[in-house]
């Protein structure tokens, strides 16, 4: 099946979810209990602010189509998604990125494409993302720290981006890199990780229909703390795989050494598939805390995307390839 064909298939299956349903969900969410209401009220109070990026410029609305990608669970509030972040380039506390990411400059945004490809070069973001064909996908996000969210992303399939870049058949992996600018990100000098941030996927993972390149959330451009202007979303893997603010894409036949794997190889593997049966040395992975909920919930194999992705790992020992 060619990439183009798969793309078409997804577009046909859009519109199964109407916006009304989402808003009804949200209302139910708000009234469910006191504690939920607390976060929701906070969200409402800050609603005006949310239309603005951290530096005060308004976030543009992104026209997009709805799709079938919706687990049917309550959405995490926009305020939580944009205030509780891991983006170590802007500090290690969860509240740091929302405070500090305004320093990131994203215009113009160029992406360097290299390695095993017929079309290396420096691309403008508009060359990579088809802004006339944006779709929304509601995905679970499961952090390795055992918390989770449900996020309405806006973007394009990763396959549609990689297709444009004409990888050679010898390319086995794709390696992504986050912007590094020590003036915009002075935290990179002190926070104990080796920057620039590097992530990677096996080629078949990258081309899996679930892999997504997000440029927005909640119908608007990505706020900087969420990885503007373009970030990966791989919903069956722990959140750190979903690399933010991407400035380079490299096709390679070598497994990329990712930032977290480099920092603690016995803790973070290359695959980092969500797996309730393989514990992390620091966090038990069997349960998770959904942001906005009071009780923990069970973590699902491959974060609930087993059907779509399990086949890619069927001959692998997942306790070894964590």
């Amino acid at each position, binding site marked *: 099946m060619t990439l183009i064909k798969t793309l078409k298939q997804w577009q046909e299956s859009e519109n199964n979810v109407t916006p009304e349903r989402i808003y009804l969900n949200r209302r139910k969410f708000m009234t469910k209990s*006191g504690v939920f209401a*607390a976060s929701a*009220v906070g969200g409402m109070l800050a609603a005006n602010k949310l239309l603005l990026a951290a530096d005060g410029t308004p976030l543009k609305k992104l026209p997009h189509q709805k799709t079938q990608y919706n687990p049917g669970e309550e959405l995490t509030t926009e305020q939580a998604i944009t205030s509780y972040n891991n983006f170590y380039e802007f500090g290690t506390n969860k509240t740091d990125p929302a405070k500090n990411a305004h320093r990131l400059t994203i215009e113009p945004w160029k992406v360097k494409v290299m390695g095993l490809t017929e079309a290396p070069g420096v691309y403008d973001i508009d060359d990579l993302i088809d802004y006339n064909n944006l779709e929304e996908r509601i995905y679970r996000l499961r952090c390795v720290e055992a918390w989770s969210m449900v996020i309405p992303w806006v973007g394009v399939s990763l396959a549609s981006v990689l297709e444009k870049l004409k990888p050679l058949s010898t390319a086995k992996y794709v390696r992504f890199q986050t912007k590094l600018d020590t003036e915009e990100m002075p935290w990179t000098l002190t*926070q104990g990780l080796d920057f620039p941030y590097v992530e990677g996927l096996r080629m078949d993972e990258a081309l899996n229909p679930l892999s997504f390149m997000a440029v927005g959330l909640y119908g608007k451009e990505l706020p900087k703390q969420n990885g503007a202007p373009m970030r990966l979303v791989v919903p069956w893997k722990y959140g750190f795989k979903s690399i933010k603010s991407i400035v380079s894409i490299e096709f390679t036949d070598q497994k990329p050494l990712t930032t977290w794997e480099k920092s*603690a190889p016995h803790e973070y593997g290359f695959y980092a598939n969500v797996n309730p049966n393989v514990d992390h040395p620091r966090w038990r992975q069997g349960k998770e805390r959904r942001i906005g909920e009071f009780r923990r919930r069970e973590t699902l194999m491959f974060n609930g995307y087993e059907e779509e992705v399990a086949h890619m790992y069927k001959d692998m020992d997942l306790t070894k390839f964590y």
Partner: protein
Amino acid sequence: MSKLKAITSVRNVRRYGKPIVFLVCLYPAAWLALQWYFAYTGQPHGLGFNFFEFTNRTTGEWALRYLLVALAVTPVAKLTKSFKPILFRRMLGLFAFFYVTIHMCSYVFLDLEGNMAEFIEAIAERLFITVGMLAFVLLIPLAATSFDKAQHWLGLERWRKLHKLVYIITPLGILHFYMMQKTTTPEPFIYLGIYILLMAIRYLDKRRAKA
């Protein structure tokens, strides 16, 4: 100068100084309790989006701070050549114990939802929890012998020796903090630096006393 002396008379320290310090030390816990109340009743609150993580981290940090403040009392008394700071030492030490206790309880009852099997597994398998737990267990005898009568029962020498455990407990707390972090940030080293400074003052003072 004489005025200052009058204001900081032992009687005033006991009568006003201690309650004030008590309230100041209680403030972080009281604030946290109030935020939980706000969260429960659906009002805006300061717990952020992960109440559990926030509560655990705040109390852990305060536990470490009070350990260091309690550890600073004797050096400060020595440097100022006044015994008055000593009047606050027990209270500060007990506040350290108080915050460690809430810190641990927030982990066990909020994070693990009271699941004791998971708690025991965590102590056995997660080294940073093992270290934290060791620090907590070592703090128990100190808290338990913090009242005046205990000094008489144990004898002053033995009591002093026992309470020197805090020289080990504090670096265990710092080690726990260091191990718990995903990356190496400067914070645990700042705490370590303060600890080393306080121990150095003790050491130098002892050498001077001997000479």
